[in-house]
């Protein structure tokens, strides 16, 4: 009790006696250095407050990691099921990113919420590179953006090139009808020769690679089929069911676009949850490290203040006697 009272006295006197070293000590606390010897110690209250806030942050990030893990599990099976959907199209029509076309539309799929690592920035970087590649004398490319994060980044420098931007995709659980309506909207507003979809493909919980899927318009498909590119496979099939070959091709391309977009959106959602999991995991680990360091500083501070008080008391007592 007496010790506590003396300690409080010491703390009240400290700012009066030596304001200069206190601020130095405080800034040194923030930069995690040794408290200079001989200084009236900083209050342990400061360190304790900091420890409390770091611990809260650690709890929050741990919770966010678990939430992301459970969401990932739910959406991963759906993404894998939807992968089989666009493979027949690739087998029939080919996926040729290198076809040279006049009008490109770059569709960037990104997330709405942040704290998910670097996946959105990589997607935007790839989109910008593709845009630069495709802007020549008679070529042009426009953006169609899905997701808030890519919109925020691309609106800054390419505002005129954005045809349509859609956000809040994940408010309702993703399903094919919703995505096919989106695909329809995009196709209505823009004329295109090739659609390039950029998304983060989910390979595993720790690896997400930006991937490009190309969907060519029916005219280009016909042109390439005649030129005998990889799409030559189409000719070996007799087209039936519909008035003309071009009408069937048109339907086919629209269907392909909505399937590929559905798969892209699901994969991107998986990558988002996976990236968020690993980001939150590393941040809770960092918080734990910081907490350890702060605990050491706290103990040192506490012991230093006790020592100085003891010295005061003892020297005071000695002065009284002698």
């Amino acid at each position, binding site marked *: 009790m007496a010790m506590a009272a003396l300690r409080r006295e010491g703390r009240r006197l400290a700012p009066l006696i030596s304001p200069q070293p206190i601020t130095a000590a405080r800034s040194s606390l923030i930069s995690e250095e040794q408290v200079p010897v001989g200084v009236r110690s900083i209050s342990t209250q400061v360190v304790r407050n900091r420890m409390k806030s770091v611990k809260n942050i650690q709890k929050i990030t741990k919770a966010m990691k678990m939430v992301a893990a459970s969401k990932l599990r739910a959406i991963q099976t759906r993404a894998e099921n939807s992968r*089989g959907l666009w493979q027949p*199209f690739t087998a029939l029509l080919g996926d040729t990113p290198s076809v040279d076309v006049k009008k490109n539309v770059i569709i960037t799929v990104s997330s709405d919420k942040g704290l998910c690592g670097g996946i959105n920035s990589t997607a935007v970087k790839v989109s910008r590179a593709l845009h630069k590649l495709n802007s020549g004398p008679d070529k042009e490319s426009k953006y169609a953006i899905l997701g808030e994060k890519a919109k925020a980044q691309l609106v800054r420098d390419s505002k005129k090139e954005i045809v349509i931007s859609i956000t809040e995709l994940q408010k309702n659980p993703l399903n094919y009808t919703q995505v096919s309506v989106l695909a329809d909207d995009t196709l209505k507003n823009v004329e295109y020769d090739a659609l390039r979809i950029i998304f983060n493909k989910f390979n595993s919980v720790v690896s997400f690679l930006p991937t490009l899927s190309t969907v060519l318009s029916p005219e280009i498909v016909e042109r390439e089929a005649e030129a005998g590119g990889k799409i030559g496979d189409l000719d070996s099939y007799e087209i039936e069911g519909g008035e003309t070959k071009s009408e069937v091709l048109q339907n086919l391309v629209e269907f392909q676009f909505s399937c590929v977009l559905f798969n892209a959106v699901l994969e991107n959602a998986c990558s988002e949850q996976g990236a968020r999991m690993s980001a939150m995991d590393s941040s809770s680990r960092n918080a734990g490290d910081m907490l350890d360091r702060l605990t050491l500083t706290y103990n040192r501070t506490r012991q230093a203040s006790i020592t100085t008080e003891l010295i005061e008391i003892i020297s005071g007592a000695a002065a009284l006697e002698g």
Partner: protein
Amino acid sequence: MTLNLCVLTPNRIVWDSEVTEIILSTNSGQIGVLPNHAPIATAVDIGILRIRLKDQWLTMALMGGFARIGNNEITVLVNDAEKGSDIDPQEAQQTLEIAEANLSKAEGKRQTIEANLALRRARTRVEAINTIS
């Protein structure tokens, strides 16, 4: 020599195994596919897919899409598909009645078209059950 049939929807794989024959309904009528059929790519209408396994016929209701038939591999990609055995007769009948009611109430071109499509879908489902039983 048997055909390998794969029926895919955006959400799941509905069928993936070998069959002896299928009857598919396309925009220009029904086509029957036996082993060693010529390669064909065709649009699939909202209708019934009949599958023959040895001597047994199974029906599936398809909601429009594409089919690719080539060297004994058939891939059918549809918006939605339901096996006849998975459809509840009562519920399908009710959906049909609701769809018919909606069609008579529909105003405007767009609503009429949508109501028509819904009606065709409901009718397909009811037919799928009836063909088995």
